[in-house]
């Protein structure tokens, strides 16, 4: 009985905060837009009964998503941006995590603190700060002009480059921490053993360190890729009119067009796309837990 209760708590949590809202969103995605409050039909009516209610639902909005190429282009562009950002984050985050894991013991808490510290400031403020750095008259351009590297200020803000910078900056800790955890757990005598058996430093890294940090890399990549795919704030603040991301499309459908059914359909498809990496991520975590037993 107690066991049942313990399991029931997280499931009730999931039911109330994920499944029920999701069912509502699915329902809206199957509805039609209407000038009403809430702005969609049908509403469930006890008098008509469930049968009439269900008969009014259809997949019209999903069909609509395929008719306008804005949507698949936005999905594709989001996937590309998320994927490229993940790779960039890995390339920058791995050396940071490696440096942290190999740093003297007394330095590590400080380095860890430095990675986590940005979280103490509001995410929005940090993105606005990047606008200040990247804009035409921003710190970066002024610095480069002062150095004489460029003669004209560069257009960085409102381009995809700014979006990449924003995403990599924001999600870097999510990459660094799991990779650090994997590297930190690694027995350093393994590297010595590899060298002892004839490896150079580089081959030892390639044959031992990298494979043993695989789980950290996978975990970090998913932690960056999944939220980056649906990212809205960064592309809308740092990106330009040419930056097409599904998070932005979603926002516009909801708040500019007030077309809740189409917006819900966009959200449901986004979730379906995300389910694949989420399931893969879960499986990786599970495998890791099993290997450690």
């Amino acid at each position, binding site marked *: 009985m107690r066991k049942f209760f313990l399991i029931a708590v997280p499931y009730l949590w999931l039911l109330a905060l994920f499944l029920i809202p999701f069912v509502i969103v699915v329902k809206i995605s199957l509805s039609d837009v209407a000038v009403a409050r809430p702005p969609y039909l049908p509403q469930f009516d006890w008098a008509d009964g469930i049968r009439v209610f269900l008969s009014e639902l259809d997949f019209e909005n999903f069909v609509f998503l395929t008719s306008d190429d804005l949507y698949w282009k936005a999905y594709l562009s989001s996937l590309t941006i998320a994927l490229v950002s993940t790779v960039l984050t890995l390339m920058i985050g791995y050396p940071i995590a490696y440096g942290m894991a190999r740093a003297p013991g007394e330095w590590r808490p400080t380095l860890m603190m430095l990675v986590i510290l940005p979280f103490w400031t509001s995410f929005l403020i940090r993105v606005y700060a990047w606008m200040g750095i990247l804009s035409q008259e921003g710190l970066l351009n002024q610095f480069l002009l002062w150095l004489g590297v460029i003669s004209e200020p560069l257009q960085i803000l409102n381009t995809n480059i700014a979006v990449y910078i924003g995403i990599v900056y924001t999600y870097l800790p999510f990459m660094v921490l799991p990779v650090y955890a994997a590297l930190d757990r690694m027995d350093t005598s393994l590297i010595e053993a590899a060298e002892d058996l*004839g*490896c150079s430093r580089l081959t030892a890294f390639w044959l031992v360190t990298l494979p043993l940090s695989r789980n950290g890399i996978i975990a970090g990549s998913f932690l960056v890729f999944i939220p980056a795919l649906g990212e809205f704030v960064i592309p809308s603040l740092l990106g330009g009119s040419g930056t097409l991301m599904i998070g932005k499309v979603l926002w516009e459908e909801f708040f500019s067009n007030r077309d809740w059914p189409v917006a819900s359909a966009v959200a449901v498809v986004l979730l379906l796309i995300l389910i694949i990496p989420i399931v893969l991520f879960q499986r990786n975590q599970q495998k890791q837990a099993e290997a450690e037993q």
Partner: protein
Amino acid sequence: MTEVTAPWEDPDQKPLIRFENVTKKFGDFVAIDNLTLDIFEREFFALLGPSGCGKTTMMRMLAGFENATSGRIELGGKDIGSVPPNKRAVNMMFQSYALFPHLSVWENIAFGLKRESRDKQAIAARVEEMLRLTRLSKFAKRKPHQISGGQRQRVALARSLAKAPKLLLLDEPLGALDKKLRQDTQFELMDIQEKTGTTFVIVTHDQEEAMTVASRVAVMDEGKLIQVATPDRIYENPGSVYVADFIGDVNIIEGQARPLEEDGQFEIMWKGAHDPLHAASTRTFGAGQTCYLAIRPEKVAITAEKPTAADNAVQGKVLDIAYLGNLSTYHVELHNGVIIKAQSANTRRIARRSFTWEDQVWLSWTSTAGVLLDK
């Protein structure tokens, strides 16, 4: 082995390893202090000492993970000071075994061979040979976390032997095994060392292990060699109280020496006792010089009556009895308060034991039973 050889006694023998005035400092801390040592081919050499005595540092210098601050380390007559670990014909078996967790037993053993650009068949043949030698053929496909501690230890040994190194370093190789398995493995190690003809250098803090496996033992303390000798000489002829005390159980009796007329015979005046003790020694002691008589408990006889014609006989009462199964150690308190340990074999059942607590007994030993030391 056809004959027992002692290359360290032959001045014409060239050593495989030579430490020449080697000093290693970590900051201000002197880990190895101006140490000189020769180790010969096919030796099973044990570095023995308490933790922090520098034995692991010596091993890591041989492997190439540490560089000497000053002095010269030679392997086969060549200075290896600047040779990185991956270019040395030296392999090491790590204390933690350091098996690659993402590779199978087979791949672990093949790891070093693959770095040598040998052809695949040669690698496979060598791995199979190593698996047979360490009786691991059945486990070739398993990952390290799927085998037992003893098997992991054998994988580590096979992996470090696979490249047929000139010198194999073993860092506390049996530390993680339980006592029974450790004893079996010690004999297995000796067997493998003989079969492969490799020179083994083993680091251990377990004196019993060093005594069992090694052809020679170096007792270390604070970065210095205290004594280097064969296990029996270390045990029977320790050069100092430190060595005597570190290896096995011992009674140390402090006193003043007085040379007798006969050469090499001494009387020892000791703590409040009327009768001096008698001991023989090849060392010279001046009259009144402080000396230490080190005597092993098994060389002290325990009897109820005063033995006639014993060189040394003292009376006391049984304070404590440690029953070890095959042996019993009696702690006997003498009249002057000194406690002496005497050991005797339990040839009779325990119910028929001759002595019990508070019994008055006599302890006796010959003048050659102990070692007379000056430090």
